[in-house]
């Protein structure tokens, strides 16, 4: 009997002699996931038609934007800075989620970031050679750097016409500042941010395709309207 247990133990030991290394769990993850809606409806590309504050009926084909300089805010001033140049393309679900492995456990009372590329990095070729990033280039002849936002689709006027809301240049950086308590837990947290596209067309400016036009790139007065409207497109959910 004694021998039986010895041999059984040897066999167990032999089969547990794995080649795989021991896996050490990484630090708790902090994830931001982005959700896109138009008022109360989940954004549906190409298909659904929406109506903006000016009464324009529109649908969305493309939505791409950068998020940069994320700050997790605390009343104490002990903020956490997450340096990032995150290119979001809503046609790619993977790009709407970003994870950080550093430990940011704690309580916060808000989050701030830019829609766009911070001025230090908003320089031609500064963000590397990835093709999707290159496709966001803002021509040197128009100031250089990157598109902050490409919001494209169709709207109905006398006929169905395209629109292209392209935002760029440092003066048009969109600053997001959300004050809401949230906690990042020890075992990981997913912070959900929701962009309401209807907000691009209002507050403080009611943007009307029929009177303002259906493209804004390079027109400072129009880019400024959209940039100001953009300050409250995001909420924490």
């Amino acid at each position, binding site marked *: 009997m004694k021998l039986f247990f010895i041999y059984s133990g040897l*066999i167990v*030991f032999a*089969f547990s002699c794995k080649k795989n290394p021991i896996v050490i769990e990484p630090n708790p993850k902090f994830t931001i996931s982005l959700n896109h809606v138009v008022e109360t409806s989940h954004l549906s590309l190409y298909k659904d038609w929406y109506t903006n504050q000016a009464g324009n009926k529109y649908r969305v084909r*493309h939505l791409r934007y950068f998020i940069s300089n994320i700050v997790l805010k605390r009343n104490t001033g002990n903020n956490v800075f997450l340096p990032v140049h995150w290119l979001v393309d809503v046609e790619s679900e993977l790009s709407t989620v970003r994870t950080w492995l550093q430990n940011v456990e704690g309580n916060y009372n808000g989050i701030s970031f830019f829609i766009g590329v911070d001025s230090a990095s908003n320089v031609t070729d500064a963000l590397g050679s990835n093709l999707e990033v290159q*496709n966001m280039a803002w*021509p040197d002849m128009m100031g250089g750097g990157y598109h902050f936002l490409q919001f494209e689709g169709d709207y109905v006027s006398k*006929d169905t016409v395209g629109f292209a809301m392209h935002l760029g240049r440092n003066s048009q950086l969109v600053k997001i500042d959300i004050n809401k308590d949230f906690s990042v837990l020890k075992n990981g947290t997913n912070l959900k941010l929701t962009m309401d596209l209807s907000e691009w067309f209002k507050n403080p400016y009611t943007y009307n395709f029929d009177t303002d*036009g259906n493209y804004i790139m390079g027109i400072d007065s129009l880019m400024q309207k959209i940039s100001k409207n953009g300050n409250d497109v995001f909420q924490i959910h």
Partner: protein
Amino acid sequence: MYFRFTKPLFIIFGIIVLLVTCRKDKPIDTGIPSPTPYELEIPKGFPKPVIPAFNPLTVEGIQLGRMLYYDNILSTNGRSCSSCHNSDKSYSIPIFVLQTGERISVPPHINLAWNSDFNWNGSENVLDHEGIADFGPEFFNSNQDSIYARFSRHALYPDLFLKAFGLRNIAKIPYPELQQKIVYAISQFMRTMISSNSKLDQYKNHKATLTAAEMRGAEIYMSEKGDCFHCHGSVLYSSNAFSNNGLDSILVGPSEGRSLITGKIYDRGKFSVPTLRNIELTAPYMHDGRFATLEEVVEFYNSGVKLSSPNIDPLMTKTNKQFGLGLTHQDKSDLVQFLKTLTDTVFMNNKNFQSPF
């Protein structure tokens, strides 16, 4: 008696189990040397190329692929890849007419290592599978027995296949596998065909100057005046996306474009955005070659876009384009001059891409 033998049996069994499960795996020596890895030289500013793990670049694979590219050994009609992809036309030819009568402007073999889709409607999204269709009656009209016979008795191919893919005795390889390896080799070669040394590239690297006309053309290209950059930007001079640029107001048959592949209504009329590198050499233009010259292309964008085309790209119907671009005769000439700065004679004359025969 039973118990006399169980003890040593247990010992032996335990030792065997211990040895077998804790042994590290060793590769089996086949006697075939591994192919030599080939590191693609990525030009400055280019994104990461698409090289699948199942078909890495090797010196031997590229050598085999280059030979196959120029050899009519694969066909029964005398054709090779180079029959439709001539070096003096940036590895394309003007038009290929399908058996259906459809006219295709042949896409050039340039910078394919960065393509995510192939053919005008993106019917293939893996370069290493793209060439399989070429064995069919439309292109090579290949004959299985003929391929086996020709390869087996060839002075060089048996050794080249062995070194590139470890394949012994070509005659014993199943035909689908042989076809796949042929296409893999050609794909490896095509991935090396990189163009990055046009006059415009040299200008950006401070090694050339542009004329006044070319500079004016660049301004039109890179601004809202011409707005070429949104689709033909990046170092590839293509977004690698699909777009409906308003060629046709009625979409029927091949003009349905990408939607014939995806079945999606919002892909109607979309075609692959081609690179503008070497565009001077690849007339005629658009998927069906309807425009004979760059001047005709520029005039199309200036005044000929069919705004009523179903699913036309929003960028084509911006306010400043609803009545055309409004380019003057000088503007159009300058833009054509700028487009010609994308011609890369270094690429055209690179002996590594030309026939080894």
